[in-house]
């Protein structure tokens, strides 16, 4: 099993930390993992993206040109990465702010209204966890409980009180794609 994933959006949407939590869950699940950010000026108000690979075997390149799954959070990233999803792959996107929808018909496309759900929940900061829940529902590469364990390991103890909130957001994210 190998999942090659790109997560892309604006800096500040939690793109890099979502990738990190996913990678950490992969590690706890005994998989090989790599996390490669597009680092630098992208993070200052521009686009941010991270390539995450979870694999049962040794990972060769952390840098890829095509992906099994793309999680897309803004128009610029959709324009850049839609063509780079492998045929038969999956494109998850948040329709908020998207004016040109995905065009491909040879891939699965899932619109996840995560911005709306995050605002509704009263905890907009859990936005990326909603998307992570949706991603893991559609591609169950690691169990949700492993992700929660990963949060316990990655978050400093002073933030552990927020874990139940994040867990709820992941479960809510799963529900968002239940009918797709």
């Amino acid at each position: 099993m190998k999942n090659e994933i790109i997560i892309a959006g604006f800096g500040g949407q939690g793109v890099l930390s979502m990738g990190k939590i996913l990678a950490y869950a992969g590690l706890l699940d005994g998989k090989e993992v790599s996390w490669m950010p597009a680092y630098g000026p992208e993070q200052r108000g521009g686009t941010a993206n991270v390539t995450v690979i979870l694999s049962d075997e040794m990972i060769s390149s952390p840098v890829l040109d095509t992906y099994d799954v793309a999680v897309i959070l803004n128009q610029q990233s959709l324009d850049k990465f839609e063509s780079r999803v492998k045929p038969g792959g999956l494109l998850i996107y948040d329709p908020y702010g998207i004016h040109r929808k995905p065009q491909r018909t040879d891939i699965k496309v899932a619109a996840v209204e995560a911005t709306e759900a995050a605002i509704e929940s009263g905890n907009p900061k859990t936005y990326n966890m909603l998307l992570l829940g949706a991603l893991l529902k559609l591609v169950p590469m690691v169990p949700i409980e492993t992700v929660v364990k990963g949060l316990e390991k990655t978050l400093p103890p002073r933030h552990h009180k927020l874990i139940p909130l994040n867990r709820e957001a992941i479960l809510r994210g799963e529900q968002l794609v239940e009918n797709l």
Partner: protein
Amino acid sequence: MKQHEEEVKLLKGNEAIAHAAIRYGVDGYFGYPITPQSEVLETLEALMPWETTGMVVLQAESEVAAINMVYGGASSGKAVMTSSSSPGVSLKQEGISYIAAGELPALIVNVMRGGPGLGTIQPSQADYFQAVKGGGHGDYHLIVLAPASVQEMADFVGLGFDLSFKYRTPAMILADGVIGQMMEKVVLPPAKPRRTDAEIEAQCPWAARGKHGRKQRNVSTTLELDPQAMEKNNIRLQETYRKIEQNEVRFEEYMTDDAEYLLVAFGCMSRICRKTIEDARAQGIKVGLLRPITLWPFPSEAISRLAERMKGILVCELNAGQMVEDVRLAVEGKTPVRHFGRTGGIVPNPTEVLDALRKEVIK
């Protein structure tokens, strides 16, 4: 400090260097922030090893100050290091030449970014010439280690210091922005205590740290105005370099047994080339990889041996063609050697490498 020998961590390459330095028992780190290696200093500051191992961590006022602090520390037999990225490493070159001339152990980490000049913060391998051919003035070499994973970032701290103390010559970890910034699984080396004064005295009888029973103080200097004596110093350095060339060449081969074509790449490019090889072999192209782990000493013999049975070689680098010169010297015209490179911070993907292999080598 507690030991977690089997604990698998998820770390950035730069973070792994910081953890490994503390665990190796490094006495001092002197640095100055620059992207894409600032996490080395940041992680050390966060881990506060001065409260556990007693390691000094100091943000100097400049790269030049930092390398001269390393020079001073190394002269006294301490295990000392610095890290920076390309423009910062250029600033350090005078100090590095002095440390080499003084026959002192030290570790210098360069997490390369795109140049020349202030350039870009994105990954590059364009400091190959600087690292392996000198960089500073005079006839000297560094032992140059090129990590291709976060695990090697951690492991090469210890290896770099071990080799550096063994041969009394500075070592460099020549990494790139990809390896510095990416996170992977890593098992950190076991923690060992810093050497005691008595251990330093026994290991480094040359160290300038007082008389300790000697009639004269040890003096560390690189000035020698008598040409006869200065040539002797050079001959001694060259003898050391020949020993290093004999004993310390390190490289890795991947799928070369039945290969008709060879990729040669180091650092992050070797990882991208491995993916290219997976893709190429799925299409029936028999291609393998030689990855130099030591860029100096260079695995010339291994490349020469492989060249005998290759239809062609493609050297892949994040530069305009640097290591390719050493590959050509090793191959001696036995088979065509071509170069594929991207510059300025652009990292090519595995398909671009495969396209270049087809266009330049297979034809």
